[in-house]
C-alpha cells in the first residue's frame, strides 16, 4: 500500500505556522519575544514565497499565450503582442532597473494610458449596467440604488443652472451617514466570515494546498 504523507505534513506545517503567526500578532509582551520574532520571520518567508509564486504565475501566463500562438487559436495576434511586451519589459526593467527613464517611459506611456482607458470604459459599462438592472430587476432596492447614484452624481457635478447647495449637502449626508453605516454593517459581516475562514484553515478543515 502506498502511503501518501504529503497532505498530513503540509497540513501540520500550515496549522503550526498559522497558530504561531496568529499568537505572535495578538500577544505583544516582552515575555513572548521569541514568539513575536518567529511570527515576523514566517511573515517574511510568506512574502518571499509570494514573490516566487508570482514568477511561476508569469511563466504560466506566457505559457498559456504561447500555446494560443502555436495552435493558432482565435486572438493569437493579441497573444503575440503580450509575449513581445512581456519580453521587452522584462529586458528593459531587468537590465536598466525599474526606476530607469526607459522603464518609467513604458509605465507612463503604455501601462497608465491603457489602464485609464479601461477605467473610462468602466463608466460606460456601469451606465449600461444600471439601465439593464432597471429592466431586469425592478424593485424597491433597485429604485433606492439608482436614485442614490443619481443624487450623488447631481451633488458631485451639478447641471448648469442647477448649481444648488441642496444636492451637495445631500451628497455629503448620504456619504457620511447612510453609506458609512451600511458599509460598516457589511464589513462587520465580511470580517466575521474572514475570521471563520481563517479558523477553518487553522483547524485543517479547509486545505487550499491540495495534496
Amino acid at each position, binding site marked *: 500500500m502506498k502511503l501518501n504523507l504529503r497532505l498530513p505534513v503540509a497540513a501540520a506545517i500550515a496549522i503550526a505556522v498559522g497558530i504561531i503567526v496568529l499568537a505572535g500578532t495578538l500577544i505583544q509582551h516582552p515575555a513572548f519575544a521569541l514568539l513575536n520574532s518567529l511570527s515576523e520571520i514566517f511573515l517574511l518567508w510568506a512574502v518571499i514565497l509570494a514573490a516566487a509564486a508570482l514568477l511561476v504565475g508569469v511563466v*504560466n501566463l506566457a505559457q498559456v499565450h504561447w500555446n494560443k500562438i502555436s495552435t493558432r487559436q482565435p486572438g493569437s495576434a493579441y497573444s503575440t503582442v503580450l509575449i513581445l511586451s512581456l519580453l521587452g519589459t522584462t529586458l528593459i526593467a531587468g537590465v536598466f532597473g525599474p526606476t530607469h527613464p526607459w522603464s518609467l517611459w513604458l509605465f507612463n506611456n503604455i501601462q497608465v494610458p491603457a489602464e485609464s482607458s479601461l477605467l473610462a470604459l468602466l463608466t460606460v459599462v456601469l451606465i449600461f449596467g444600471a439601465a439593464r438592472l432597471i429592466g431586469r430587476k425592478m424593485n424597491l432596492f433597485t429604485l433606492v440604488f439608482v436614485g442614490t447614484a443619481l443624487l450623488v452624481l447631481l451633488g458631485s457635478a451639478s447641471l448648469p443652472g442647477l448649481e444648488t447647495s441642496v444636492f451637495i449637502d445631500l451628497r455629503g449626508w448620504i456619504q457620511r451617514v447612510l453609506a458609512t453605516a451600511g458599509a460598516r454593517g457589511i464589513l462587520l459581516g465580511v470580517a*466575521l466570515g*474572514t475570521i471563520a475562514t481563517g479558523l*477553518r484553515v487553522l483547524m485543517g478543515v479547509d486545505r487550499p494546498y491540495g495534496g
Partner: protein
Amino acid sequence: MNLPELLSPGLLGIIFIILFTALMTGFTFARRSQPVRFLRTIPAFSRLARAIGLAVEAGNRLHVSLGRGELNGIEGGAALIGLTVLQRIARVASASDRPPVATSGTGTLTVLSQDTLRSTYRRMGAADQLEPASGQLTGLTPFSYAAGVLPVIQDQQVSATFLAGHLGSEAALIADAGERDGSLTLAGSDQIPGQAVLYATAQELLIGEELFAAGAYMQAGPMHFASLRAQDVMRWVLIIVILAGLIARAAGVL
C-alpha cells in the same frame, strides 16, 4: 489591572478567537446529533447549482474568477472561499468533457488554483482530463486582470462565471463580458466598491458575508454549517458590545 489595560486589542482578540473556535467546534459536534438544519434560500447558490448541472450536460465550461487577494493579507479570506468554490465545482464538473477554468490576479492564487484543480481531478479519477491552462494568471493589476479574463469568457464556451474573491470595481468589466456573451454571472466580493458595481452588472450578487457561506451551501462539510451558526452568534455578541459601548460612552464610563 485597570479597564483600558483589560480592554487591550490583543487580549480582546484572543478572547474573540477562543470563543469563535469553541462555537465552531461545539456546533460541529451538535450538528452530528441533530437533523439537517434549514438554510435560507440564496438565489445565487440555487442558480449556481443549476448552472453546474446544465454545463456538465451540455459540455460547456464553468469559469471561476478568484480575484486578486494575497493570502498573507486580510483579503486572503475571500480568496480562500474562491478556492473552496472552485474545488466544489471541479468535483461535479470532473464528469464533464470540459474542466472548469480558474483565473486569478496573483501568483499565489494561480499556483493554489492549479493545485486545487489537480488534486480534485486526481481524487475523482479524471486527472487526464485536466488541461494545463485550467488555472491561469491573467494580469497583476486590477484592470489588466479584468482585461485578461475577457477573452477567457469569450473564447472558451463559458456558460457560467462565478466571481468569488477580492475584486474591486474592475469586476464590472468581467460581469458585463459574461452578460454580453449570454452566460450566467454570479458574484461575491469582500470589497464594498466591488459589491456596489456588481449589484448593477451581475445577474446574482452575494452581499457581505453571503460569499463566506458558499461552503455551507455547496455542501463542503459540517464545519462550514457550524461556521455559519458561529458567525450568527458572534454577530449578536458584536451588536451587544457595540450597544454596551454606546451606553457606557453616553454614561461617561468610557
